């Protein structure tokens, strides 16, 4: 028998359209060639992917980035971003060896150090309290030092500082904000540490503090964990339930298809947030229940797309051809229908995560879903809403975080759609 020898068709590089080339290259090359081929921008995917990766890393290791624990009371209330808390600081002459409050301790029997404070300001009592704490520490140490400063009260900051210059007192304790305004008038004095240690410039918070003195930035970073957790797990749960249901309903058809489609359409007909509210209200507040509620919300999304795709793919000739070579039903579902359906699922998955994060934040904003002790953006938003006029940073930054995360996931989904299905763009 003489075999037919087919020569590879000779096609010049110009004649070969990008559509042919598209099929031959892998995903990475496709992303970079996309701009040249059909104007889809690789940087769109790149930026959103970097953002997504960043958020995921923060979600996995918030402790690497967050300066404080999310629920720790670390500073004064309502401290604006980058504002320094008003701390009582020690002012001493430039040549003084004193630096910390502990340096003022003297052996028993020696004259107690004299410290100037201002009347009517809580610095005096703060100094007393802190001195007692240090006294308790040092009196049991070898050397038998005691710290019992003698406190002189003056009418104003200027008078208290003048007392040092006059030699009446060895040091003064005044509020750091006051010192900033008058320090230029006392060039021979310098600022030592605050009475609790550390400089007066320590203790600032990049994004400020909230109504109970928690660090907004730390809560934001720890809140990423909840957002990503809810986004990913509810989308995965929805996918794991919606995709097989859609596949089977589309493939089997008949009564099963009609029944499942009816249930899914009913779910789909509900306004999303209302359904999630109803489910969490019944199940009670916990992360797990929020994930369940949001997953239920998004099962129909996967179901409808997969069922529709299955219905059209199963009528393809290659499925009939597969039957004609003896492939069984499960094999056809596995090897012929599923691989042809899954690309559309991958794309909605990313957009779905963004949606789920938004819904999760919405739920906790309404006070449903998450226990209020958890660091979550929605909860922080709800909290910040009450103080929107006095502390804009409390509501702004969680809001921005939600915006960025949703943007990143949606952008990635859209970008990937364009890379995978360039023809969609032409329509």
């Amino acid at each position: 028998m003489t075999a037919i020898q087919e020569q590879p068709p000779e096609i010049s590089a110009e004649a070969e359209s990008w559509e042919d080339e598209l099929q031959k290259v892998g995903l990475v090359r496709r992303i970079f060639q996309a701009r040249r081929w059909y104007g889809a921008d690789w940087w769109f995917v790149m930026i959103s992917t970097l953002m997504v990766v960043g958020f995921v890393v923060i979600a996995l290791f918030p402790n690497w980035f967050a300066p404080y624990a999310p629920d720790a009371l670390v500073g004064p209330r309502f401290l604006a971003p980058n504002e320094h808390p008003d701390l009582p600081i020690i002012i001493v002459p430039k040549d003084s060896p004193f630096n910390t409050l502990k340096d003022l301790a003297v052996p028993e029997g020696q004259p107690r150090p004299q410290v100037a404070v201002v009347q009517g300001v809580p610095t005096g009592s703060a100094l007393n309290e802190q001195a007692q704490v240090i006294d308790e520490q040092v009196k049991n140490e070898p050397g038998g030092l005691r710290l019992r400063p003698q406190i002189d009260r003056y009418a104003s900051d200027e008078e208290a500082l003048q007392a040092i210059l006059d030699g009446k007192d060895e040091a003064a304790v005044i509020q750091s904000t006051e010192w900033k305004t008058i320090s230029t008038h006392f060039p021979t004095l310098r600022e030592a540490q605050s009475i609790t240690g550390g400089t007066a410039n320590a203790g600032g918070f990049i994004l400020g503090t909230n109504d109970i003195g928690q660090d907004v930035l730390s809560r934001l970073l720890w809140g990423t964990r909840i957002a990503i957790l809810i986004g990913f797990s509810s989308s995965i749960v929805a996918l794991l339930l919606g995709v097989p249901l859609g596949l089977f309903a589309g493939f089997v058809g008949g009564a099963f298809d009609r029944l499942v489609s009816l249930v899914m359409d009913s779910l789909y007909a509900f306004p999303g947030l209302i359904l999630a509210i109803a489910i969490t209200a019944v199940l009670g507040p916990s992360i797990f229940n929020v994930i369940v509620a949001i997953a239920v919300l998004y099962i129909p999304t996967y179901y409808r797309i997969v069922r529709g795709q299955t219905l059209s793919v199963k009528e393809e000739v290659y499925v009939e051809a597969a039957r004609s070579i003896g492939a069984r039903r499960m094999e056809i579902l596995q090897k012929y229908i599923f691989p042809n359906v899954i690309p559309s699922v991958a794309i909605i998955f990313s957009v779905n995560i963004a949606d789920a994060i938004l819904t999760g934040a919405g739920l906790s904003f309404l006070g449903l879903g998450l226990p209020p002790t958890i660091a979550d953006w929605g909860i922080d938003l709800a909290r910040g809403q009450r103080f929107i006029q006095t502390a804009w940073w409390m509501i702004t930054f969680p809001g921005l975080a939600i915006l960025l995360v949703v943007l990143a996931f949606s952008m990635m989904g859209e970008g990937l759609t364009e890379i995978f299905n360039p023809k969609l763009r032409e329509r």
Partner: protein
Amino acid sequence: MPDDILYSIRNLTVEYQTRAGVVKAVDDISLDIRRGEILGLVGESGCGKSTLGKALMRLHTGPARNSGGQLLFDGRDLMKLSEEEMPDIRGAEIGMVFQDPMTSLNPVQRIIDHLTETIHTHEPGTSDAAARTRAEELVEKLGIRHERLDEYPHQMSGGMRQRVMISLALALRAKLVIADEPTTSLDVIVEAKFLDLLKELQKEFGLTILLITHNIGVVAEVADRVAVMYAAKMVEVGDVRDVFANPKHPYTQGLLKSVPNIQLDGSELYKMEGAPPNLLHPPKGCRFNPRCPQVMDICRIQEPAFEAVERDQLALCWLYQNAPASAEVHNG
């Protein structure tokens, strides 16, 4: 059943359930397919030839079903097998080549996977390497270089894909290949090559081929015998040379007259009057009677039998049969 007959179809009926009612797309058809022959099945669009092809593998799902008759394949009645037993027949005993090679391969599967999957489905013990070797030998015979096995269907031309489809049927040495308009979407050169290939395969593998087509020229070129269908009925079966030289049924006669012939003079081409009947309400009696130039009274009353007119040439026509007495009485 004589030993030289591979597939004996007896009184096969295929029904489609539609909103308007039950349509018999294949109505009480009997046909013998002999071992090692190429049987051409011709007929106009919608006459039921593709339905018959699929029914032979019991591929119908949904609205269509094989509703009656016997499918005696190599001594077994396929109608009696369960749905679970049919996949063992499909591919291994009977293979199929579809009309559109562009869509009949899974776009996300490499060519090699199509072939090895067929082998693994029917011979689960075969190792991957052995299956690959078999596949390579097979496609080389069909004129596809084995390196191309790792490509995806879209990287191949239509003719190559059709050869891949054939190789799927040959991978397990199927006894019968049903080729459903395999060359319709190919251009004439590729079509000619493909038909040559079919003939060579028939000789080399002793393959039996049922070639479904509406192109009577293709049948003349490659088929040993020809079966003509009209309106869900088999109207004539016989040796290609006999039928072409001496068609019995008026429909076959019209069909052959309407083919342009370069050797005859340039007189106007014969045009058959009328249109094929609506199968929901087929005409009473012979289904061809509204269009038949030689119609008789009996044709409108009673359906003729599918009988041998000459040795090895059967026709469904009253012209060659005696009308039963009762009909004549009624007629008179």
